[in-house]
């Protein structure tokens, strides 16, 4: 293919990729009357902050705060517990290792909605509906996917360093903390980003378990904006902007980690 043709195709693709984001920004800063009197792809002059004000008045920022808290706690939990489990799978020999690891991999195939029904029934039995504990518990101990990712990475680190440390009397905790973790920064970064994105975007479980205001998260609040009278697109786009913006910032700051994570999980 000739170079101009390649750039042509890539630019069309880039436009299609970014257009929805552009539309969110444009619509957020329009008034309701601008919305129907202007072309969707043209900006309003001057921009209006009306939608953002109305969004703030609806208590949306509280739910964004809940999302941020949930995301932070789940990311810390995932990094901690996943590291231990992945270390065991990558470096220790114990009875049942292979079987257990395959069990972990197989659980990645279980559809989300299958586990939601019993999890809800369990949480209801334990009176944990609409509590932080109920919201966080299913994800805080790490995920099989994360363990798989970290195990793959740990296995790429040569064992010589560890052997040397062990001869000097270092225990497994010291080896993990002093040797493996410092060498694993890229993988930990990747895992942190993936977990942050997934927690921030999670919808189904919060929808089921936290309909109450004390633990409601942004995704659930956005879904309820949908039911607002008359399809208030300005408000919906303002909500979407607030939800999408942090992820775009995270993406721009860490995109090389994400590209690397693909090479990591890419079947080697």
């Amino acid at each position, binding site marked *: 293919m000739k170079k101009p043709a390649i750039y042509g195709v890539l630019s069309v693709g880039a436009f299609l990729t970014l257009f929805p984001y552009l539309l*969110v920004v444009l619509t957020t800063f329009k008034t309701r009357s601008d919305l129907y009197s202007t072309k969707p792809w043209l900006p309003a002059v001057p921009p209006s902050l009306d939608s953002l004000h109305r969004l703030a008045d609806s208590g949306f920022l509280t739910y964004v705060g809940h999302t941020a808290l949930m995301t932070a706690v789940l990311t810390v939990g995932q990094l901690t517990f996943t590291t231990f489990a992945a270390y065991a799978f990558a470096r220790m020999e*114990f009875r049942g290792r292979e079987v257990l690891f395959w069990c972990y991999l197989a659980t990645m195939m*279980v559809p989300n909605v299958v586990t939601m029904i019993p999890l809800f029934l369990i949480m209801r039995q334990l009176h944990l509906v609409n509590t932080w504990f109920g919201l966080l518990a299913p994800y805080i101990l790490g995920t*099989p996917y994360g363990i798989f990712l970290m195990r793959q990475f740990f296995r790429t680190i040569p064992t010589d360093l560890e052997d040397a440390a062990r001869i000097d009397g270092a225990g497994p905790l010291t080896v993990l903390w002093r040797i493996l973790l410092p060498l694993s920064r890229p993988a930990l970064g990747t895992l942190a980003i993936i977990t942050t994105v997934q927690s921030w975007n999670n919808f189904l479980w919060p929808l089921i378990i936290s309909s109450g205001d004390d633990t409601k998260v942004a995704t659930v609040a956005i879904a309820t904006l949908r039911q607002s009278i008359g399809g208030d697109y300005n408000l919906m786009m303002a909500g979407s902007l607030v939800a999408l913006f942090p992820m775009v910032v995270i993406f721009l700051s860490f995109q090389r980690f994400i590209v690397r994570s693909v090479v990591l999980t890419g*079947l080697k």
Partner: protein
Amino acid sequence: MRNRRNLTAYAFLLPSLFGVFAFLLLPVAIVAGVSLFHWELLDSPTFTGLANYRRLVHDGGVRHSLLVTVFYVLLTIPVQTILAVVLALLLNQRVRGVKFFRALYVVPWMATPIAMGLVWSWIFDPANGALNKFLSVVGIDGPAWLNDTTFALPAVAAVQIWQYTGYNMLFFLAGLQGIPAELYDAAATDGASPLRQFVHITLPLLNPTMFFVLVTNVIGSFQVFDTLYVMTEGGPGDSTEVLNFRIFQTAFQQFDFGYASAMAMLLFALILLITLLQVRYFNRRTTYDIS
């Protein structure tokens, strides 16, 4: 000594083992159990054996949902995969700015599906949405998209394709970069055309990547939920009522947990079957290891 090593390993694994057991394996066992009961939320459960499964077999709505689900998977997977391969081929060239484009195409992967569902609803808005406004500029009278039984499902599929094509491209790009250049040089010396090279070298050597991408994406497509929830809620009529969504409604809107659990078992079995078929297919075809 050996026992002590075992103990340390189990100690390291304990939290995650507890998580996998309590939040994944135990729930699957519970779903299997609950599917044998008639249980609506406020009643106490009564054991009914296979009654829920007999009801499944005769339920026209479930059959419809199965068809919609399969149709949705067939709408998304081929397009998403082919586009990702084409993009990867383009971005594997040595042209200026490829790194920029590589990163840019991955942006939608992180987008909150619930928020993006709303954004696309606004794009698909029949009267004032960007798509129909644009179509009217070029003289086409666009359909009502999400309010039209024919176009609603393809519209939801388009959002998924938009969201995941770039992310899948990264996997194919990694795969392409693992193919030794000498293979192409040798083929070119033998006079193989670029198309022949693609069919006989690139595609076969991408098999492991293809396997991974197809398996994970098919599992994901069978479970489409968030975008559907905000874009169509299964409608208009029941034209976008995929099985996953019907399970959610049966459990959490009609509170018919026994029957919803039987449906969940059906979905689980279906995903398992399709995945195993893919494993078999690719095991037979992947004869060499490039790593």
